[in-house]
């Protein structure tokens, strides 16, 4: 019950924890949620570990938060899907090199009853306009994530300011993709989601994909090792090995081979070196 023993105990805990993270063979990835929630990492990381012996830990948060965390040097690799923000991250010197990694696409899901009657539309701007016109209900991430940024850009292109209806038919959940899907399904609203999350999502109820296939719904993922000049504590060598492996033929094949119910979730498109 004395103070010394407390300090002693925490010093031991501290040594242990530092050792675990600082070991050469461990890196931390600040990642968007879709890659984690869809199970992609569970498929990729064992393969990578078998090849290199490097242990990869993943913190899955929204793209906005992932970038912030990486700027604070709380990660060795950034893997997100918001190209403009990623390029700004590199330009500001937080990362050295951004590489296209893979893509999938966004879809708009909605209840089978389809109150805004957008089912089967291939023009996302027209679909969004119809949702806005009918006040059919739309649940937005509202969390500065990659998906949220993409959604806002689509509304802007359609010439609509949905935030003027915030709290009315436009509902900003301020949560992750899964939580927003749960909320949207709960209130019968349309939701824009990446296809990977949707395919692996377990609480679809009567929801189906209503809009897909527009080029504007393209969703590009990129990978960036952080800049060791900004973050000397980063495990930069292992981070580079991970990024290189992901973009190598072996990594790209591994991404392509990940399927749920026979459906491919991510399509590798790293530049061939």
């Amino acid at each position, binding site marked *: *019950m004395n103070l010394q023993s*407390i300090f002693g105990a*925490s010093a031991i*805990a*501290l040594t*242990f*924890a*530092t050792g*675990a*993270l*600082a070991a050469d063979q461990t890196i*931390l990835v600040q990642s968007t*949620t879709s890659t984690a*929630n869809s199970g992609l990492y569970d498929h990729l990381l064992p393969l990578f570990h078998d090849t290199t012996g490097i242990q990869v*830990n*993943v*913190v*899955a948060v929204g793209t906005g938060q992932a970038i912030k*965390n990486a*700027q*604070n*040097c*709380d990660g060795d690799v950034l893997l997100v899907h918001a190209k403009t923000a990623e390029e700004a991250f590199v330009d500001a010197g937080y990362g050295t090199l951004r590489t296209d990694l893979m893509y999938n696409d966004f879809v708009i899901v909605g209840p089978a009853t389809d109150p805004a009657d957008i089912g089967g539309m291939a023009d996302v701007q027209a679909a969004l306009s119809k949702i806005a016109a009918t006040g059919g209900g739309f649940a937005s991430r509202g969390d500065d994530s990659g998906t949220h940024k993409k959604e806002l850009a689509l509304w802007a292109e359609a010439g609509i300011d949905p935030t003027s209806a915030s709290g009315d038919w436009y509902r900003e959940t301020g*949560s*992750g*993709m*899964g*939580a927003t*899907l*749960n909320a949207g399904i709960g209130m019968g609203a349309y939701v824009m989601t990446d296809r990977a999350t949707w395919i*692996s*999502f*377990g*609480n*679809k109820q009567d929801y189906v994909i209503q809009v897909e296939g527009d080029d504007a719904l393209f969703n590009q993922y990129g990978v960036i090792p952080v800049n060791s000049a900004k*973050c000397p*504590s980063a495990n930069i060598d292992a981070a580079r090995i991970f990024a290189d492996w992901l973009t190598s033929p072996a990594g790209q094949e591994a991404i392509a081979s990940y399927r749920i119910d026979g459906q491919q979730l991510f399509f590798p498109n790293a530049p061939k070196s």
Partner: protein
Amino acid sequence: MQSIGEAFSVALHLVATGDADLFEIVLLSLHVSLSATLLAGLLGLPVGALVAVARFPGRGALLVVMNALMGLPPVVVGLLVYLYLSRSGPLGFLGLLYTPTAMIIAQTILIAPIIAALSRQVLEDLHAEYAEQFRSLCLSRRQTVLALLWDGRYSLLTVGLAGFGRAVAEVGAVIIVGGNIDHLTRVMTTAIALETSKGNLALALALGLLLLVIALGVNAAVQTLRMSARRQAYV
């Protein structure tokens, strides 16, 4: 509503098959929250006991602050700890972010005020009974505090339970400073949040049921201790 029935069968299946990942998550939950409760007790009990016996200017204001701190939002605690432990923060050099240690720190900060405020109440009542006798015996403040802590130990167990309950049930702080990293910092509540966000509601609910069972187990153990203490008239 089918999720609820399904949750029970999923929970039973997880337990029956001795799911290794589940076992790991449960152990980490207990490790983190019990450690935090212990540390918060070491910090909070002496503070609670001192405030219970001491009279000083500003004591009333301090009581209000202590009681208000019981309502600290876990997310705010998580954020504060994150800012300190982040590599770019003042304690970043320790490399503690995204480790169980960081989670223990956050939960300790979260529940130390609860333990201090509740133990202050318990010990003040006990002190009201003992005060005159202790003054008659010319006990020092230190002797008084130690005697109150010892004689109040069974009531303080309940205070510890309140702290543990808060710690093991919170998700806001541990998900920020722990990062919910698989096999490293994933605990019951962050696993529940993750499965919910994956739309696996039955699995999330099953984990919730197991968390409840664990909380029941800890409470039952403490209750048994208290019952035997009551028979001894030590409560």
